[in-house]
């Protein structure tokens, strides 16, 4: 990710991409094509059933195509995604086209083997290209999802807008340590629905009198679902990433202003406790107390003369020299703490003042108008 894409005060925590095995569902389509191609070749050439395919050259192609399309229909129904069927239909049509174009009718089984392997390799390459197009950037302010081979898609979600986190890890994910995390936004982005439909019809009668009945039903279940480029798809290492995202989401629950206030108060409390400890330390050291008091008394009249800065500085140095080293060290630490407190205090009112000034200027502007 380029630096200019980041927001002010934004830091990249992690850049992720999907695990190579996280798109196994897509890769399985290619695996089936290659396995089925090999099986058809073996059946027609080497098995005990070769005699079944000797009658007609087209038998292997018919068997190959029928099973391919049948599996396509079943997979489409199971995955509720008809693109699988059309993909296999395309593979079958492509094979048929090649045979007619190049006149490879004589050795169709060998063609099926070579064609299946070639198609599968292309399929694997496309899936890999698609996988590599994904990039998930986890920053301290938001999560950026990028993906798409031709059309580039991008989603950004701020941590304070995440309403829910859905995480899932399949068996492969559990073995190889990857998983999917879906951040559901307050607007419901990241939620989808699984729809199932069942319908049946019956027609009675043959010539004139016909009775037709139809019954159907549907069920819709809300479920966290998103495209791979809108979720942290198959990220590795899953547990660490999940912990990181959940941790950042938790820290982003209060607003930025509240966080700053809490931070400021924490600093103040820290300084005060440190000062208290130092004072305790100073007081508990009784034998040296007198000398400290003496020095304090000596300091008072000098502080009343702010005009002679150089002289007082020299005196202060000499007094510190006269103090025991432990006391001098404590005083030095207290000075440092006071300085720190001042700098923190100065930084805060400036912002408030500037805001007040802005408001005043606005009011003045209104009055002028």
């Amino acid at each position, binding site marked *: 990710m380029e630096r200019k894409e980041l927001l002010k005060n934004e830091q990249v925590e992690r850049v992720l991409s999907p695990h190579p095995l996280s798109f196994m569902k897509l890769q399985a389509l290619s695996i089936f094509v290659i*396995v089925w191609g090999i099986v058809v070749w*073996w059946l027609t050439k*080497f098995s005990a059933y070769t005699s079944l395919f000797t009658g007609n050259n087209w038998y292997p192609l018919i068997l190959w195509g029928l099973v391919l399309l049948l599996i396509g229909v079943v997979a489409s129904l199971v995955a509720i995604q008809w693109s699988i069927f059309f993909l296999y239909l395309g593979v079958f049509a492509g094979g048929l086209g090649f045979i007619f174009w190049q006149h490879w009718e004589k050795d169709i089984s060998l063609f099926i083997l070579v064609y299946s392997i070639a198609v599968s390799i292309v399929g694997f390459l496309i899936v890999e290209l698609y996988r590599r197009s994904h990039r998930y950037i986890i920053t301290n302010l938001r999560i950026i999802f990028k993906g798409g081979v031709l059309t580039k898609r991008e989603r950004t979600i701020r941590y304070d807008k995440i309403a829910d986190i859905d995480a899932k890890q399949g*068996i492969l994910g*559990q*073995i190889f*340590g990857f998983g999917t995390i879906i951040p559901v936004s307050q607007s419901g982005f990241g939620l989808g629905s699984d729809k199932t439909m069942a319908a049946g019809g019956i027609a009675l009668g043959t010539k004139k009198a016909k009775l037709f009945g139809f019954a159907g039903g549907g069920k819709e279940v809300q479920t966290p679902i998103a495209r791979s480029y809108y979720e942290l798809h198959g990220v590795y290492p899953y547990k660490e990433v999940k912990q990181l995202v959940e941790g950042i989401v938790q820290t982003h629950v209060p607003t930025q202003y509240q966080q700053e206030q809490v931070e400021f108060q924490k600093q103040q409390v820290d300084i005060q406790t440190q000062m208290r400890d130092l004072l305790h330390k100073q007081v508990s050291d009784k034998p040296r107390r007198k000398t400290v008091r003496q020095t304090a008394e000596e300091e008072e009249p000098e502080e009343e003369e702010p005009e002679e800065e150089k002289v007082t500085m020299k005196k202060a140095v000499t007094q510190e020299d006269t103090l025991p080293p432990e006391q001098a060290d404590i005083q030095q630490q207290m000075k440092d703490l006071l300085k720190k407190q001042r700098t923190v205090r100065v930084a805060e009112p400036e912002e408030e003042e500037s805001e007040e000034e802005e408001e005043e200027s606005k009011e003045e502007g209104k009055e002028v108008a």
Partner: protein
Amino acid sequence: MATVPLDIDVLFAAAFAPVIGVVAFWFLQLVFIELQKRMLLRLRHRHDAFCRFTNFIGVLFQTICHALGYTVTRSGIASFQLTVNYGKVEPRKEKTGVLEWIVDSFLLFGPFFIPAGFVLLASYFVIGKGFAFPTLVHYTFLESLTGFGVSMSAFASTFANFLITIDLFNPLHVGFLFVLLFFGLGIRPSYIGEERKEKIDMIHDLILIKNHLVKKPLYILAFIVIFYVFYLLSLFLNPLVYVAVFSILGWMSLTAIFALLLTYLVIGLIKATDGIRTRWMAAPFITVIVSYVLARVFFIYYPMKHVESVSLLVMIVSTIVITILLIKYKKTNRFKTEKKMKHVRVADGKKRTSKKRAG
């Protein structure tokens, strides 16, 4: 009905012959499992995913056996959970007594025998022959033991012959080989976890089994009596049945041993690839496939006898040679640095100049 001589050997001692045989083979199986565990433990730090995979298969077998135990005892299954790290089956009704003991037996002994039974069933369709039962004449202890041994030997020889002549261009054979490998990887009932919480050695398994058996000694006695009655019945009706039952159990153990031996090859190959440079690590695995395919294609054009065996031999030899070469290649480069030492010394400001040498 068979005519049985009234003899103490026949009526009493012969009943134990096949039992001894099965226990011996099962013990041998345990030893092989123990060896596999040791190998996997050594691999774990570099191949955690592989160990998790084997754990998953192991947990799968255990959970299925446990569920089968509840089904057999008609306890019903209320929930069935399965992850890579653990499996959990809860019954609808918690049953006590004999039924609980049977369920526990399924959990303890099931992983050793039930998956093996399924593989044995599958092997019947692939191998076909070799499932020969012994023929007994005198029904003595020695004859029963010898008959059991002969049956085991015949099965082992057929199985080994199948593995030597396996046709990797036959999808059925390839499928069976994968089943055998998965079975071999998951047969151990112990879990190799990220943290070694408990002992996972053979002694631990045996102690668990012993505790289970000692817990209800009466049930054991009852089982022995049932088996003895079964022996006596088979002795007078058909003595072959008794020996055949134990022969099947022995075949299961043998199948498991073959599967475990095959997994040694896979684990050995994975272990060997640790000594190879990262970018060449896949080379031995690719060699396994490519060398076999090339050999088979070669023999299509130049046919000869025992093509499958020779192709397997070519595959094994070429894989070993390539792996050794790749390991040696790494070793020769071990003491070479990516940057030249001269440049490293210049970067550190420790480069010796001619003046220093002179000084």
